[in-house]
């Protein structure tokens, strides 16, 4: 199943610095905004790492949904790719691709939460188990809706080009 060490691939220090700078930068603090850009420019691998973390989540979700059934695994993976493609649309920016990944993860996460709840109901659940599964479904719904909303917002904003270096190539993160 999922091991805690699977989370160790992201530069946690860079993410922590971004999170620390964000409140002040969001209020317009120029030093914080400069710091934010420095972290983004100085940690181009972060985009790949976050993408990898998303793929780890996807794999764990697919494993949970399909178990050892290879046909189910293939079908779920194809559906997941279709959800991701639909969400990303034509010519997505790197940011839109990342957000489309999040939509796909949210979709599968909700499907898995509902599926495991359904299985538990078939087995017969006690009150605490029922509550556990209901909470998971509600959380998955929130996660999915938040992902869709974030992607829609980025599209609506029409964010101008923001370039970062990913894998030694300069790419546009947003339009």
């Amino acid at each position: 199943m999922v091991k805690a060490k699977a989370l160790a691939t992201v530069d946690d220090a860079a993410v922590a610095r971004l999170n620390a700078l964000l409140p002040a930068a969001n209020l317009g603090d120029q030093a914080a905004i400069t710091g934010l850009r420095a972290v983004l420019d100085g940690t181009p691998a972060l985009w790949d790492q976050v993408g990898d973390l998303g793929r780890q989540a996807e794999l764990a979700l697919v494993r949970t949904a399909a178990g050892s059934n290879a046909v189910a695994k293939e079908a779920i993976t194809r559906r997941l790719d279709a959800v991701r493609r639909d969400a990303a649309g034509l010519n997505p920016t790197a940011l839109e691709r990342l957000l489309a990944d999040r939509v796909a993860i949210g979709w599968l996460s909700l499907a898995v939460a509902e599926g495991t709840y359904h299985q538990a109901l078939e087995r017969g659940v006690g009150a605490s188990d029922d509550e556990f599964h209901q909470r998971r479904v509600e959380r998955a719904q929130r996660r999915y809706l938040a992902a869709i909303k974030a992607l829609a917002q980025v599209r609506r904003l029409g964010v101008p080009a923001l370039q970062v270096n990913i894998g030694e190539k300069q790419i546009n993160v947003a339009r």
Partner: protein
Amino acid sequence: MSYEARGPYHYYYRARKVGGRVVKEYVGHGPAAVAMAAQDEATRVDRRAAAEARRTRQSQLNDLDRVTDAAGASIETLLNASLVAAGYHRHHRGEWRRRQPDG
């Protein structure tokens, strides 16, 4: 559930809660009581195994949610950082807006 010895005989009782109090209920003695006790023990073992399986399953699902949440949180951080770096701001965690130039 317990056996109580009185002289040469063993009497089998079940304990259950009634209105928050534990009430002992006499089941029987002799071979019938032994069979009932064995059946009760088998039921207890099954229940314990089911509870353990449920705990294991819940723990696995919690691990899965942790990985999913971690991915979502990292993406959220990159999204927010990218938008703020690109000149946007978010008012009270609401809609994103283009920051107005100073002056």
